[in-house]
């Protein structure tokens, strides 16, 4: 397939798009019609006329400071700035009159008088708006003599007091004040787009400087999202990669491979060398914004740790031996078939990756169903959002979020439960914060005081800091308040939901045992606060619920998801813009991997394997018989392995040893298997127990699609050739064919065609459609040819929405004298999941180790000081890490992240799981914390074992 030529208009139109009644005006004699509220500058751009500008850019509201964009308007005095002047019907605008051209040259002359003229050696040469504008206005001379300025290091014999040296503290970009024209674009980007408010302008007049209010960028509040770098018109804020390599000469639109927001990026290159990743303004998930991971943390793709050749070994105690692809495949295929011959066809299985593409995931599940002949396929969604699949499937009839991200712009009350968007889903968080600054109310339900509870210009109306494990009680208490105070949207419920089931539900939920007063002691949430939050949600206008793994990763994860769906239906908040139930997906393609039939009980499109008519579709397409029985889920595979009935595993792009709970149990399961095939970029922790290592390709090296949390199918495009030689779908095909499959795919588009042919919700998805529309949200088929931004608009997918009784059941994981604290886990902004990618980038500058957050009261009684080594122990195991004393966690609760394998937070977590889906209860573990001298014996043993397990024999001479 040829390189993509994007038909989208990339012109910077100066000010943002408006929505409104059409207004017609004339610009330089060209008639143009634009929405009311549009600026004259944008209208001119629509007419094909670019008014010179410096402080304006269409990602930011107009500011009107540079005066370069002045125009003349018939009947108006003076020369108004076109960026801040809204259009009026019949307006006659002149953008190139002699008068304004003279003003512009004068303005440019002043700018240039305080700017170094080192264009040829400047890192922004060729990518500098100041340079472009000097050309555009016809600047030919600068009459001002050198005087006081900001760019010369010396002023005569003395040092120039106005000169500030370059700040290169941030690992990814530099701030060079000498190049700054104080246009405010960076400050406004930090404020309007990112919502961090890390930047400001200090001083007045000639003394005005961009400031981070800290010694440097790295020590400031800056979250390194790159919005300021993007906005800067000069070399003042510039990517280090551009400084090192030079300006890029071509670009490819692709999709970020980090979180479930699924941002669109322009990968900008010189040849096949990636120069930078720039968020794409036409990306419908991110609308031109990015975070530190997607924007900057791609260096892992070329990290020296990447394994590029296949490797095998007989025993996991042997060193690895590099072999040819042929040898690796025949070794792997021989072993897997041998295990089936010896232990039965169900003795092997696969784990699909939520980081790989839809096409790759589809092939891996097809491998087990069509080639292995069983349904032993599972995916990392098991350990994150499987309860979402079950809970939303039961209540609404479909296993996905109901909205697109744009919907948040129409929300009046937002409930965030068990999610930390500013860290886990930063670009969505920025869009949410923008809405909150515009007046929407926020209710946070989380044991920890996440940043959204209180940060710059955002504060939650209610923070219900519940005890970990009491989600169902809190959600039910909110429903209780809504039902008993007569706030339920009865007409909506009568029309759209099963009324009989609602009556049973309202009887149940109206019982006094669900009242906030009755559950206060249990949940730790003050009843009055909970009542106020429930009323605010029910009566505040459009109410939207966003939730994360703090909801799902519990014994009652599925029940909480149902409780959330109940709340949305109770208040009439499903089926239009600004409302809905929105699971925030952890990994880039969790949604897609679930859609693609990765679960052992369902074929692609969430159809249970027991259905003969569904099996028939795939039996016909694949020419095999499909097992009607559900296969093993990941925890079941590990249990079966320990028991001796599950012997072989093909694990693509997932590190179960680090990411799954109860590490010792996972290790025992893996060690008991006779053939573990790890397909990954790196020798991850799971690979310590592998017999075959198949090198993977990064998202930059393959074609395919990812499906984000809003069901949006986005193209992933090959930016460079795979360093390992094959895209991941090709590797799976090699393995399948080595086992006799006879597959002949030559491009992922053919795999998508097979998905579309077999899966009704994808029936209209083709690569051609994706090229044309940029992206589509499933269902995309004959009924919805353009895809489906909002679900359940005219009624629920299952017919009538179903209220489900949600009785709170305390988890068996209880605190007691031995383990008096509750541990909960989460993510930090700069790192991603097990850190395999982000730890191999400069993001470690922000988070180079996992720490244990502990409340000052709990720390004091244990004699723990900040940065002390502490031992963290549960009934499952123990580990050691450093303490961080903070009141972000409540007394009785401790918190850590699991990004670093040295910490092994999952040695602590237990094998308790969600009742319906076996999703592990990561978020609640009873623990004890006390002082320690350093790493635990387990950590030392583990590191020693990992070192041995990663030995690679030198290649034979």
């Amino acid at each position, binding site marked *: 397939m040829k390189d993509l030529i994007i038909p989208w208009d990339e012109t910077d139109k100066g000010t943002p798009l408006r929505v409104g009644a059409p207004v017609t005006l004339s610009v330089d004699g060209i008639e143009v019609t634009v929405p009311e509220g549009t600026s004259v500058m944008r209208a001119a751009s629509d007419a094909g006329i670019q008014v010179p500008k410096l402080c304006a850019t269409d990602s930011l509201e107009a500011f009107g400071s540079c005066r370069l964009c002045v125009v003349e308007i018939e009947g108006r005095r003076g020369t108004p700035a076109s960026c801040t002047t809204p259009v009026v019907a019949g307006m006659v605008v002149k953008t190139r009159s002699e008068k304004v051209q003279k003003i512009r040259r004068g303005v440019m002359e002043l700018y240039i008088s305080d700017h170094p003229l080192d264009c040829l050696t400047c890192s922004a040469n060729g990518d500098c708006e100041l340079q472009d504008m000097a050309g555009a206005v016809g600047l030919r001379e600068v009459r001002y003599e050198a005087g006081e300025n900001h760019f010369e290091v010396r002023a005569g014999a003395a040092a120039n007091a106005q000169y500030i040296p370059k700040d290169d503290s941030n690992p990814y970009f530099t701030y060079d004040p000498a190049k700054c024209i104080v246009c405010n674009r960076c400050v406004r980007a930090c404020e309007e787009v990112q919502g961090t408010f890390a930047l400001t302008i200090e001083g007045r007049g000639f003394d005005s400087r961009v400031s981070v209010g800290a010694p440097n960028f790295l020590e400031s509040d800056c979250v390194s999202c790159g919005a300021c770098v993007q906005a800067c018109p000069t070399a003042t804020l510039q990517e280090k990669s551009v400084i090192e390599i030079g300006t890029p000469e071509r670009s490819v639109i692709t999709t970020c491979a980090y979180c479930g927001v699924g941002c669109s990026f322009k990968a900008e290159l010189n040849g096949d060398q990636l120069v930078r990743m720039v968020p794409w303004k036409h990306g419908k998930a991110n609308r031109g914004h990015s975070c530190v991971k997607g924007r900057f943390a791609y260096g892992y793709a070329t990290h020296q740790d990447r394994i590029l050749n296949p490797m095998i070994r007989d025993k996991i105690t042997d060193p690895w031996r590099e072999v040819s692809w042929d040898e690796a495949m025949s070794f792997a295929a021989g072993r897997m078939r041998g295990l089936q011959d010896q232990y039965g066809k169900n003795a092997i299985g696969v784990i699909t990756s939520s980081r790989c593409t839809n096409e790759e995931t589809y092939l891996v599940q097809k491998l087990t169903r069509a080639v292995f002949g069983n*349904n032993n396929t599972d995916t990392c969604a098991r350990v994150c959002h499987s309860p979402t699949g079950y809970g939303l499937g039961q209540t609404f009839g479909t296993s996905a979020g109901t909205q697109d991200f744009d919907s948040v712009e129409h929300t009046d009350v937002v409930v965030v439960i068990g999610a930390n968007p500013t860290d886990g889903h930063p670009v969505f968080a920025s869009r949410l914060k923008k809405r909150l600054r515009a007046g929407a109310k926020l209710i946070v339900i989380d044991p920890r005081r996440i940043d959204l509870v209180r940060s710059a210009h955002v504060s939650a109306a209610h923070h219900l800091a519940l005890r970990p494990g009491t989600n169902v009680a809190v959600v039910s208490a909110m429903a209780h308040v809504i039902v008993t105070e007569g706030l339920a949207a009865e007409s909506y419920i009568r029309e759209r939901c099963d009324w009989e089931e609602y009556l049973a539900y309202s009887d149940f939920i109206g019982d006094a045992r669900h009242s906030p007063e009755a559950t206060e002691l249990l949940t730790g949430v003050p009843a009055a606060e909970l009542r106020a939050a429930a009323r605010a949600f029910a009566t505040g206008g459009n109410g939207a619920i966003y939730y994360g793994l703090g909801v799902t990763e519990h014994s009652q994860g599925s029940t909480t998801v149902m409780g959330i769906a109940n709340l949305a239906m109770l208040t009439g908040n499903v089926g239009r813009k600004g409302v809905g139930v929105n699971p925030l997906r952890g990994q880039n393609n969790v949604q897609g991997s679930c859609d693609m039939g990765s679960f052992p009980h369902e074929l692609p499109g969430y159809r249970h394997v027991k259905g003969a008519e569904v099996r028939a579709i795939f039996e016909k397409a694949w020419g095999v018989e499909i097992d009607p029985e559900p296969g093993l889920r990941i925890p079941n595979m590990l249990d079966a392995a320990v028991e001796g009935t599950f012997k072989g595993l093909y694990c693509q792009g997932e590190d179960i040893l680090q990411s799954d709970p109860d590490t010792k149990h996972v290790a025992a399961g893996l060690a008991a298997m006779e053939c573990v095939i790890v397909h990954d970029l790196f020798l991850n922790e799971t690979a310590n127990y592998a017999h075959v290592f198949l090198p993977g390709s990064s998202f930059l090296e393959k074609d395919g699609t990812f499906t984000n949390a809003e069901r949006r199918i986005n193209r992933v495009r090959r930016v460079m050739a795979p360093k390992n030689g094959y895209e991941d779908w090709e590797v799976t095909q090699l393995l399948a064919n080595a086992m006799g499959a006879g597959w002949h795919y030559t491009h992922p588009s053919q795999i998508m065609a097979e998905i579309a042919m077999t899966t009704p919700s994808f029936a209209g998805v083709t690569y051609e459609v994706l090229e044309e529309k940029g992206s589509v949200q499933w269902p995309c088929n004959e009924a919805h040819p353009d895809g489906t931004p909002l679900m359940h608009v005219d009624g629920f997918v299952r017919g009538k929405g179903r209220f489900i009784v949600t009785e709170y059941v305390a988890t068996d994981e209880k605190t007691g004298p031995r383990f008096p604290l509750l541990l909960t886990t989460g993510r930090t902004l700069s790192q991603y999941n097990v850190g395999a990618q982000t730890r191999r980038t400069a993001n470690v500058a922000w988070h180079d180790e996992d720490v244990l957050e502990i409340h000052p009261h709990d720390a004091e009684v244990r004699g723990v000081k900040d940065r002390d080594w502490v031992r963290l122990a549960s009934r499952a195991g123990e580990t050691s890490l450093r303490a961080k004393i903070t009141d972000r966690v409540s007394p009785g609760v401790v918190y850590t992240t699991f990004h670093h394998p040295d910490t092994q937070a999952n040695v602590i977590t237990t094998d308790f799981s969600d009742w319906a889906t076996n999703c592990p209860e990561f978020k609640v573990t009873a623990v004890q914390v006390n002082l320690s001298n350093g790493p635990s014996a387990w950590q030392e043993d583990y590191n020693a074992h990992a070192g041995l397990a990663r030995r690679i024999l030198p290649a034979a001479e």
Partner: protein
Amino acid sequence: MSPEKMVMMANQIATFFKSQPGRDQPERIADHLNDFWAPRMRAQFLEHVAAGGTGCDPLVVRAAGFVRVPAG
């Protein structure tokens, strides 16, 4: 899987369905097991119940009658 873990999982499922209205809880528990438990897990479960069902919620024992016996 250890019998204790299996019993705990079955009891968790029963606890949910016990809270649901209607009189068909055993059938719904069995449906859940049929839909999500692999044949070998169901076989182990049925054996355990047949051997007295130590630790099982009475509702789990009643549900066992509706659990599909794996072929082979």
